[in-house]
């Protein structure tokens, strides 16, 4: 039996007296895309940060790919927050080189990896451009490229398709699907379409609780009704 890459078990999180998450559990395994939907401000980003380890849970346990304290393999993790984390004065290629060093990708395969993501995310023409001068969609592509640098085993994407035009969005979704053959992907999104077309499993986060969505043989309308029912039913 293969262990999940990300295992969140009975996690609760409070910000002062406000409970953001209550006894939340979910897992992400290899070769699957797990989606997280929910209204604005419900705690999706908090969930992402907990999954990353940059935020500590008040209750519960989070395990990432059997990671122990002494075995932090940062290149096996990819993360893209809602707004691409970029240095405006850096150029595309040096930025990817910096991330490669931060991810501790060995120098021997670092350049090769950078070339791979530059080609994969169609960044060749802008590799010498400053990040501050790029459009929002292009910045998003650079942000995704850094997340996929080093062929990570687990990728966390916080609303990754916002700001992309339909063609770019289609291309990036294809890349995410292709990457899921070798990795586990956990993404938060507002798009029901993305959940139906991309995800193998999906969860709804509402009023600090998590609900598993039934997305098998489900179209967008059915899923929307299911989400609205859950939000109204639990919200009242």
């Amino acid at each position, binding site marked *: 039996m293969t262990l999940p890459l990300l295992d969140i078990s009975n996690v609760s999180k409070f910000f002062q007296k406000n409970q953001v998450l209550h006894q939340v559990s979910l897992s992400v395994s290899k070769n699957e895309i797990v989606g997280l939907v929910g209204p604005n401000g419900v705690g999706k980003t908090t969930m992402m940060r907990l999954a990353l380890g*940059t935020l500590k849970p008040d209750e519960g346990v989070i395990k990432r790919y059997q990671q122990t304290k002494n075995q932090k393999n940062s290149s096996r993790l990819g993360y893209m927050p809602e707004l691409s984390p970029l240095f405006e004065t850096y150029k595309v290629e040096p930025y990817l080189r910096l991330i490669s060093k*931060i991810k501790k990708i060995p120098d021997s395969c670092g350049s090769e990896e950078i070339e791979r993501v530059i080609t994969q995310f169609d960044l060749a023409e802008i590799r010498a451009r400053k990040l501050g001068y790029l459009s929002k969609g292009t910045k998003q592509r650079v942000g995704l490229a850094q997340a996929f640098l080093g062929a990570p085993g687990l990728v966390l994407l916080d609303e990754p398709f916002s700001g992309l035009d339909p063609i770019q969005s289609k291309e990036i979704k294809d890349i995410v699907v292709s990457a899921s053959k070798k990795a586990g992907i956990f993404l938060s999104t507002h798009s029901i379409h993305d959940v139906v077309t991309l995800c193998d499993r999906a969860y709804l986060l509402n009023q600090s609780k998590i609900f598993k969505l039934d997305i098998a043989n489900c179209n967008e309308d059915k899923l929307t009704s299911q989400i609205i029912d859950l939000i109204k039913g639990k919200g009242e």
Partner: protein
Amino acid sequence: MIKTLFFKDINLFFQSPMGFLIISSYWLLAGFFFSFNTVFVSAVDMVSAFHNMCILLLFFTPIITMRCFSEEYRNGTLELFLAYGVNECDFVAAKFLFLTCILFILIAGSLPAVGILIIFSEPDLGPIIGGYLGLILLGLTFFSIGLLSSVLSAFQIVSAVIAWFILLFLWFVDYFSVFVKGASKEFLMSISFSNNYIDLIRGVFDLSSSFYFLSVCIFCLFLTSKFLMHRKYFGRVSV
């Protein structure tokens, strides 16, 4: 990892015109005060130059340090790097190393003044070297306070105001000694920057002052690391 983060900060500082502007402004002002004192006040020594450089550092520190962590918060790069396994202490160490490097560049701008003194007079180099060491110690203390202020807020201007407040408070805190007596008076005098730095810039090695500045510096760096770690539990910066 510290090396990678250090070069990232150096690159960021010199990739924007702000870095050059800050350094050239500091050099220009330090040079002006030295020339003014030499030509018009006839103070042909480095003590008055060191004094003016300290005052300039007091005002330049928040401008240099305010973006250290505030910008990382706003860019989301701090979160990203921590997610990729960068240690909080490495982050603080790299920032402090970067600031130390900037301090050396700022102070190096005054070396032509020493050259002029050597050419036109016969200065005693011992106190000058001692004065430089004192200035470096004072500068590192200022920068560590600036770094701590930067970690407290995602807004650069808020970080700068906090840094100015702490620095000016610690500079003028001895003024309050007129209101108290005994041990309180002595305490206020002993923690005042303006009271402690004089001997250092004269090149006189004062153990208690050196120890005080070093302690403030280490304490601020420790607090900065603790504050970064504290974010893991509370999720956001507090100001």
